[in-house]
């Protein structure tokens, strides 16, 4: 390992050789005994201490966040799912009425005979005659 390689590793991983990639640690420790490599490590360790400063998050703040999570979970549990609201008896009345009507219609369509009327000229005349009676004299 050259001093330049040592410097690059130190600038990337910091001044603690134990945190460097395992493959380079032994060679780095040998080199760290030297004065120049030692200075590089000292400078990087100083930066490490600065970079590791954390924003303060006290327990009270974390506790409030946790409480908010529990409240949001409770809200989700309380809120009825869409299918539950649809499956309420009051919501089912219009839907069931529609379904029953459709079923009755289908049953009638199958049960009653369906016949085309004769399409000859006499039938047409008869139909016109019948309708004129209906409109002129009303239904008898």
């Amino acid at each position: 390992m050259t001093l330049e390689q040592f410097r690059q590793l130190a600038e990337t991983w910091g001044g603690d050789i134990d945190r460097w990639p395992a493959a380079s640690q032994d060679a780095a420790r040998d080199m760290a005994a030297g004065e120049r490599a030692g200075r590089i490590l000292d400078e990087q360790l100083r930066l490490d201490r600065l970079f590791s400063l954390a924003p303060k998050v006290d327990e009270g703040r974390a506790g409030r966040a946790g409480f908010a999570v529990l409240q949001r979970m409770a809200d989700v549990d309380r809120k009825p799912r869409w299918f539950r609201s649809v499956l309420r008896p009051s919501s089912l009345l219009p839907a069931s009425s529609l379904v029953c009507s459709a079923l009755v219609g289908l049953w009638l369509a199958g049960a009653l005979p369906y016949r085309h009327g004769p399409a000859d000229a006499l039938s047409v005349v008869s139909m016109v005659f019948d309708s004129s009676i209906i409109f002129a004299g009303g239904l008898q």
Partner: protein
Amino acid sequence: MAAVSARQHHAFRILMGRHMQRAIRVAQRIVRDPGEADDIGQEAFLRVWSHAASFDPDIARFTTWLYRIVLNLAFDRKPRRPLVPIDEAAGVRSDDPEPVERVIADEQRRILEQALAGLSERQRGAIALFHMEGLSGVDAAQAMNLSVKAFESLLGRARAALKENVQKIQDTGRCA
């Protein structure tokens, strides 16, 4: 975590008690806004609860999984409001008993906050995981969904930029 997967609320409360500070801390380091960091912490644990069954301890540790959720939320979010001024964001109280040490620590935090503002969110994430949280390169790469080589490159660039920004702030009092 197995109890959380079994939908036990008590276990989930314990899990949050242990890890919520960690989630908020990492989120705040990336988004630099305490309110947004709190929201991300909450959302992260809601996801932990709803996706607990998909967690596999053979693939990753819980903390690595949590970090990944927090990072994804932090990177994917859309900022809802302008960030607080850096000087106010850096004004964090310290619990150190010695006033002089406290002043020095506060000053260092202020410099760091200012210097971090010049980094990308992914660079801030790399610094947060490796230096603030003390993860190994392998674990941090896994949390960021990167190869170790890609994480090494990201961390190297982040450290170089941060060092340069710190130097500028110490020399001139400002980052850019």
